[in-house]
């Protein structure tokens, strides 16, 4: 691990949501570094700040405090236009609710990021169809969402996230709306993509889903309570201690070895 190769670097990130008088501290001093090629699962109870963290990583949201950098570039100085271009080029999003456009054929869905990347029409269609083939939907390019099963719809969404060849794929509970078997299929697809070199960050509730990841980050109340690098081998050491980890939604023997994930000064 070298500082220059880190894809994502976060230092003491806090996020406060204000709703009238009340303030919600969604993230409370999170520091994190993700290297290129990693497969990271973020787990934690509902409301622990996973989605907030992912929105910041995905440049959809900005932290209230702390430094965030992608490929060594600080996000805080960027304009909305630059952020949009970075999202378009570097990041692919997969959501729990697929978020497909109603009534548009699959290839049109997948083409969308290329439209905003100013890729010519013929070229973008070709690449969309190609990417659909990559997720096993070569035959379904002209099908509309209502003609596809839930698993197929999520695979269209994954193709859409992949089509502009991002450095990082972010998935927020991608199997949450799928039954176990189709969820398995989608996870197998992620596995395959990771083997092909894609950096993956997946938020999940599902223990089995998390077990597939090489690194599991557990969150609670806006802080990272455990972070396991490398394998899912149980270990009983770590900054956050066993007792806290035991209360995480992932029971033993998962996780808790705290990788020596060095935090670099961003920017």
């Amino acid at each position: 691990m070298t500082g220059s190769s880190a894809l994502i670097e976060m230092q003491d990130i806090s996020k406060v949501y204000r709703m009238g008088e009340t303030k919600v501290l969604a993230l409370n001093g999170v520091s994190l570094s993700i290297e290129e090629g990693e497969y990271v699962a973020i787990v934690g109870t509902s409301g622990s700040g996973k989605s907030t963290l992912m929105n910041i990583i995905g440049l959809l949201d900005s932290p209230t405090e702390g430094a965030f950098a992608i490929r060594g570039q600080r996000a805080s100085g960027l304009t909305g236009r630059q952020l949009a271009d970075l999202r378009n080029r570097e990041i692919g999003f997969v959501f729990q609710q697929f978020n497909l456009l109603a009534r548009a054929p699959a290839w049109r869905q997948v083409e969308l990021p290329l439209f905003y990347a100013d890729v010519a029409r013929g070229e973008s269609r070709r690449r969309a169809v190609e990417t659909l083939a990559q997720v096993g939907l070569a035959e379904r390019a002209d099908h509309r969402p209502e003609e596809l099963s839930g698993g197929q719809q999520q695979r269209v969404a994954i193709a859409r996230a992949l089509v502009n060849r991002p450095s990082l794929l972010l998935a927020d509970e991608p199997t949450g709306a799928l039954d176990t078997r189709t969820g398995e299929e989608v996870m197998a697809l992620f596995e395959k993509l990771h083997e092909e070199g894609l950096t993956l960050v997946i938020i999940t509730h599902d223990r089995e889903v998390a077990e597939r990841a090489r690194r599991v980050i557990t969150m609670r109340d806006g802080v990272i309570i455990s972070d396991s690098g490398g394998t899912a081998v149980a270990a009983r050491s770590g900054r956050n201690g066993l007792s806290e980890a035991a209360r995480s939604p992932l029971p033993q023997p998962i996780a808790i070895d705290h990788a020596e994930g060095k935090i670099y000064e961003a920017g």
Partner: protein
Amino acid sequence: MKLVRYFPVAVDSITANKMRAGLTMLGIIIGVAAVLSILGVGRGASADILDEVASQGTTRLTISPSTESEGEGAGAPVQTLTMGDVRALFDPAFHPDVVEVVPQFTGNIQLVAGSSNKQTRVTGTTADYAGVHRLEMAEGRFLTEDEIARMSNVIVIGTAVATDLFERTQVVGESVRINGEPFTIVGVLEESGNAGFGSNDDSGFIPIGAAHGRIFNVPRYRGDYTVTSISANAVSEERVEAAELQIEQTLRLRRGLGAHDDNDFTISTQASLLDTIGAVTSTLTLLLSSIAAISLVVGGIGIMNIMLVSVTERTREIGLRKALGAHTSDVLLQFLIESLVLTLLGGLIGIAISYGLALLVQRIPNFPIDILIGVDALILAVGVSAGCGLIFGLYPAMRATRLDPIEALRYE
């Protein structure tokens, strides 16, 4: 160019909800169809009238008495235009540019033939009337110089008078009674077809002497019979103005009007008539089309309304597009072009409807109006509907750009 690529996006989202799109366009469709039809009717009507006026010659001058401006008889014509004026205007030495002078005394009176009768507009005049007013004969001839001189009991009638009294138009030689006096019909006028401007179908013409002396109880002024109006012809179109001045001079002298006195008569030329008609029709058209334009504004507000609903309904879509890398300008253009396409489509349908209406009206025989839709009106309609789309689509599009992608993606 990227701008072009928003159009299929707009068409997609419009076809995704055809019913709503149709209802949205309705306001624009009705507005554009109304404006175009009204402009077309205005143009058709003024073209008709101008044709009519032009067909009556452009050298004619008409002298009529002014109306009383005050006192009990306000609004009634001043009774000072007389046969004496007519005789004076005949003098070519003072009126070198005036070639024909025709007196007219017109009144409404009953014509009787057998058991039929008809209230008719009867004009006492001279033989030159037919030439100055370009009358065409269907049967017989117009009044002759000799009949005028003899004040003969002869009459020329319009076709409507002939058919009402005799149920046919070949009535030369028949006789009608006016005030108990028999008048021999010597001619029947060509039917003018429309019941409107300049039609003589309901008229009768008799020698001026007979009208003055026997038929009407004509008031006199300084010993001469008064007339309703005097028509004259200028030698050429270029000399109309000179002829007008010559006539004005004579009439002012005969009335002893001082340098600061107003005329008690008016001289109108065909040119001034054309001007007046043009002004009246364009004012009318403007008035009516501004009423129709209000419906366009209402239609535009409808568009704005639906676009706002559409933005709200598609909050998730907007959030998604932003997450995938859409710039603010991309979102703005997408929604602006969507409302532009909606209103342009509505405008085109409105144009088609007004054209259909114009064709329909053309096919109805004897329909009094024509709808003429000019290219300028078409360009106006397209421009206005595009403008409506851009103006009324701007606010909803700006609302869309202001959506926070995270909120939008959370939106249920």
